């Protein structure tokens, strides 16, 4: 397959899916008598500077969430607990940073580590339960999500401080805050400093998966657990470690906003990212680059949802539906394209075999090494000349 064709195939699925999703949504809007033209003019309007930055910010956050989920998915661990993990981790980091036990950026770095640690531990519970007690991580992470919410509520009621009607952790000192990066000098919205974590995590994720032994073990376990075991992978340990890593990455999700904007953990902490991350990871096929694409699509859509609501008077919920439709359309398109590719590949194998095998002779050749001691002398009986069977042809 030529490079161009290969690239074409890679792009075919998403393009196909986006077109299909667009058609479905338009039909839906038509059916309910909504302003379809308005919908498209908002959705296709070029985002302004501010919106571009906002999309970048949101993409970075969703990317972190997507990677956190994908790490588990790559070895068939369905970690739906990213939600609880990042919230608990965000709370812990906010509380820690607010205490300002360490000076300046030391405090920041320590808080980030705290977040990763707490996220890892919370995910690790599910991992350990799975590895050592056989408890399905699907159940345990659902339960742990709910417990995390109550736990944070309890802690923050005990130790939080009130600002007006909100209750927050103590604001972190000025010196520990991470600034923003001005992508456009004029824009009041700027890139969160810690949004760069997404780039770092993305690169590390790629390297981990494709260039390290651990990553190989992880992928192998995901691709075939039995084969991984036979190759010497300790799956229990892998389950625990993978959940720990997944949780540690989850721990980072809440940090960009916290360190560049809110400076504490409080009532306005963004929730739901863990669940969106699952969709983003699946949309990106758990691939470091694919997830970036997925995060971008989701961020773009939710950015436009705001405008859609205000400018076209269409419920932003349609955007959520659109996101789901895109996920489904993309995976269907992928399946179709993949089948096509597998067929191509098998055809290639077959062609190769045909080319190699001397014409008129079936099956793989017998060993050819004449000096091979295992090759017995030719049988005495003459080889009968087989007559072609059947009258056909």
């Amino acid at each position, binding site marked *: 397959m030529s490079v161009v064709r290969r690239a074409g195939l890679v792009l075919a699925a998403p393009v196909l899916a986006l077109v299909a999703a667009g058609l479905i949504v338009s039909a839906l809007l038509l059916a309910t008598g909504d302003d379809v033209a308005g919908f498209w003019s908002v959705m296709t309007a070029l985002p302004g500077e501010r919106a571009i930055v906002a999309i970048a910010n*949101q993409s970075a956050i969703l990317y972190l969430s997507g990677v956190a989920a994908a790490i588990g998915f790559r070895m068939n661990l369905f970690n739906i607990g990213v939600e609880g993990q990042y919230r608990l981790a965000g709370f812990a980091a906010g509380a820690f940073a607010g205490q300002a036990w360490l000076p300046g950026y030391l405090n920041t770095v320590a808080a980030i580590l705290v977040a990763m640690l707490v996220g890892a531990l919370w995910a690790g519970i599910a991992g350990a339960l799975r590895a050592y007690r056989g408890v399905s991580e699907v159940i345990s992470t659902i339960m742990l999500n709910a417990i995390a919410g109550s736990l944070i509520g309890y802690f923050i*009621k005990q130790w939080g401080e009130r600002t007006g*009607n909100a*209750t927050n952790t103590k604001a972190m000192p000025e010196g520990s805050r991470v600034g923003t990066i001005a992508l456009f000098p004029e824009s009041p*919205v700027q890139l969160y400093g810690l949004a760069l974590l997404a780039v770092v995590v993305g690169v590390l994720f790629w390297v981990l998966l494709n260039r390290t032994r651990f990553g190989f073990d992880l992928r192998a376990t995901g691709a075939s657990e039995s084969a991984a075991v036979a190759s010497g992978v300790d799956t229990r340990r892998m389950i625990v470690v993978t959940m720990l890593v997944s949780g540690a990455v989850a721990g980072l999700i809440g940090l960009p906003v916290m360190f560049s904007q809110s400076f504490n953990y409080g*009532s*306005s902490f963004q929730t739901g990212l863990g669940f969106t991350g699952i969709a983003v990871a699946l949309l990106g096929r758990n691939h470091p680059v694919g997830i970036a694409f997925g995060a971008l699509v989701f961020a773009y859509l*939710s950015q436009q949802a705001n405008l859609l609501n*205000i400018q076209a*008077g269409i419920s932003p919920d349609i955007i959520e539906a659109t996101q789901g439709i895109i996920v489904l359309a993309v995976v269907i398109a992928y399946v179709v394209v993949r089948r096509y590719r597998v067929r191509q590949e098998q055809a290639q194998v077959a062609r190769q075999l045909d080319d190699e095998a001397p014409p008129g002779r079936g099956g793989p050749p017998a060993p050819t090494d004449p000096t091979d001691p295992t090759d017995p002398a030719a049988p005495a009986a003459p080889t009968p000349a087989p007559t072609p069977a059947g009258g056909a042809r």
Partner: protein
Amino acid sequence: LTGCGSNSGGGGGGSDSGSGGSASEDVCKSKTDGEGPKIGLAYDVGGRGDQSFNDSAYAGLKKAVDEIDATCVEANAQTDDNDTTRAERLRTLAEGGVNPVIAVGYLYSPAAAQVAPEYPDVDFAVIDGFSTTIAKDATNLADLTFAENEGSYLVGVAAALKSESGKIGFVGGVDGALIQKFEAGYVAGAKSVKPDIDVEIQYLTQDQNDAAAGYENPSGGKAAAEAMYQDGRDVVYHAAGKSGLGVFQAAAAAGEGNWAIGVDSDQYLTAPEDQQPRILTSMLKRIDTAVFEAGSAVADDSWKSGFVTYDLKSDGVGYSTSGGFVDDLRTQIDEAGDQIKSGEVTVPSEPEN
């Protein structure tokens, strides 16, 4: 105390809604030109139609449209908003040519504090907010806050007086500073009448970030209230947004002798017929007034920045009398109100422990 009983419908002045109407047609869509201000309203999670908090804001909007010829633009919140998306929403409104921008709910405080300085020509207000503690110098930013504890004190008095069993209940949405104010006032009011009254407190969630479980959870509200009625508690006050609808359902099911108390707007007016006889009163939080006044202030150039508190004295909170179930108690309730107004009684704003 005229403001409390009369004309206190969630629908405000010109509300044409029938017995159960809350949000019939959307005034912002139906009316596109007017002489008055163009008001931008950003709802809290739950949005228009919750028959309490957000609807009360909508009622003020409608009143402004009807009375000062205003026009309006609405924006909905999403459950996974963060400060940036909220700020972006306010900016989009501001750039759409509205003035003032009114954000419903304290969650908008940081966002408004950030956005207000960027648009000096637009006025911003946050219902229940604390934005001016963040952007201290902004002259175009106001926090419209309420003395919910004072209003709750009054319905607490009503509850204690009405209760025959000496056991009453409180169903709160999210267990946090805001709703605790309701709880504190309610308990104080009840105890002022019957010091040994038994008040059970139930919050639907401890999770501050789970507004849906707190304020959009009628089945939770129903379960909580049902338990209270079965336990012999005959008056239950809710401060739980839409979840309160479940409290009313439970009250209706519990039947004669059991009461529910509404919140924010006069919920008697929007309740279905079978529930109306069970709604003793409602704690009025005049968000409609606040919204209307913010609109008017822009129209006649009298914007006040900083904290604006709507309390009992200014008729910003109160109680409703629709249905006439508290008619016999009004003297005592109003007496309590007077004590608050005169400063004789200070209502706590945080629960005791």
